[in-house]
């Protein structure tokens, strides 16, 4: 099982020659819900995008199960922030979840019974079955976030990269989302979740990655999410604020 994990080795990503993440090394195991923490500009979104293949990595490598990223694109689901989607798009919840099947169907293969069954299951596990025929703008924020989860489930991805999914949700919606994420972890999926509300970290995540361009700490919440590590992670920002 040594390669049953997502390996990030010595990865550097730069925008216009300014490094956003630098020499990052991480070994993330499947069946875990990881919180990705750090101040604004720490490289949280950049790391998710690098794993999803949306930004080029300057050096280093990313592999899953020992395979290079380009070979396992289908196993990785990227769940963007809610704001980037045009929610007026003429599509129902079921239609959007069905888009999760596109990667395995390609252009030609017809959408068959097996695909419909996967979509139904995705709607059930995310408790969206009653809302399946609604246009996506007629959903609450939490329901929209669950639609992203359902689409990733329909893609049958093993690694889920979630960009700030809890932002803007009320407590009930947060709890619903957390419960579904727990169920996904129980199925052996690896969830990497960028998050900025430090108060809710212990109740939401098993482990944390603390990032500020470089890796500050990584491990179980109880041993890693310490005031010392938090201070170190956010220190650069504090310095920038305090020192002119």
């Amino acid at each position, binding site marked *: 099982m040594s390669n049953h994990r997502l390996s990030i080795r010595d990865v550097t990503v730069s925008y216009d020659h300014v490094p956003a993440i630098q020499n990052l090394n991480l070994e993330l195991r499947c069946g875990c819900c990881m919180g990705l923490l750090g101040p604004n500009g720490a490289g949280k979104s950049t790391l998710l995008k690098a794993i999803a*293949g*949306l930004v080029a990595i300057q050096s280093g490598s990313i592999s899953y199960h020992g395979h290079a990223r380009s070979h396992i694109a*289908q196993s*990785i689901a990227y769940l963007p922030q809610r704001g*980037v989607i045009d929610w007026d798009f*003429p599509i129902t919840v079921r239609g959007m979840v069905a888009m999760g099947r*596109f990667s395995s169907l390609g*252009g030609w293969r017809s959408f068959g019974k097996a695909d419909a069954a996967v979509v139904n299951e995705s709607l059930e596990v995310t408790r969206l079955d009653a809302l399946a025929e609604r246009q996506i703008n007629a959903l609450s924020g939490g329901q929209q976030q669950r639609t992203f989860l359902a689409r990733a489930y329909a893609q049958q991805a093993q690694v889920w990269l979630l960009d700030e999914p809890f932002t803007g949700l009320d407590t009930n919606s947060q709890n619903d989302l957390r419960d579904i994420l727990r169920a996904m972890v129980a199925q052996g999926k690896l969830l990497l979740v960028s998050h900025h509300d430090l108060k809710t970290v212990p109740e939401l995540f098993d482990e944390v990655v603390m990032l500020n361009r470089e890796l500050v700490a990584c491990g179980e919440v109880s041993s890693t999410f310490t005031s010392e590590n938090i201070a170190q992670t956010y220190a650069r920002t504090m310095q920038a604020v305090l020192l002119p």
Partner: protein
Amino acid sequence: MNAVLEPFQYEFMRKALLGCILIGFTNGYLSGFIVLRRHALLADGLSHSLLPGLAVGAILFSLNPFGLFVGALVAALLVVLGGKMISHSSRLKDDTAIGALYVAAFALGIILLKFAPVRVDLDHFLFGNVLGLGDADLWITYGLSFFIVLVLAIFQRQLLLAIFDPAVAASIGIRVAWFDYLLIALMVMAMIASLQAVGVVMSLGLLILPAATLYLLTDSYSVMLWGGAFLGTGGAVFGLLLSYWVNLPSGPAIVMVLSALFVAAYLFGPRYGVIHRILAHRRAASQSALRQSSGEGH
């Protein structure tokens, strides 16, 4: 029934009917992608940029339809690629760069037309003449329509996902930028296919109105895309008949039919129509007022 069939005893009307069906279906289907990708204004710019290519085509090949076709295609691609190049290499954005180039191209086109050995009518370029469709025009329309519909049908899933959620599309290996260029190239081809029949301005109507109408009526992208194809066909054929019955220019008649449907959807659409929205808003307001007054009564 006779009123419907009678026009088609003439060959020019039969050719016009075939042209309308092909153009209506192709542009109507493509219109869904254009509206979802919010490319309606880009389409407007591109339509004007065809003119210098047509003028050069007319100077070099006289009025040979294939020469005009190649000229128009090259001119439009130069404007798009030139616009993209300017936006990449300066602080200007796409819309400004392409906007600047297409007005220049249009002006250049009008000047170049003065040098064409044959008289080219600007009205003809803008508004077309479906009743003057020749065999070569029909072959070009037929070939382009078939190609456009085939490409859209093959890549429908990739195009939709690239439009709806570009980041997720890219993460599963879809080349989003490539599909964006493909859509622009298909738009240019559709305009060229419609050029002789309805002209570029009217072609824009067929590339925007069918999907804009259905966008106000449906929550299903399939209905919007394929419904757009049938709405475009129906609108083009009915507009053609109308132009025959009432003796109107055919291109504007087609666009007016589609515009009337668009206005009807905007006003009377059962869910997204403006009248429904006003009524729903009033109902909600009066209900909340009722609730408040009954609350005060307690």
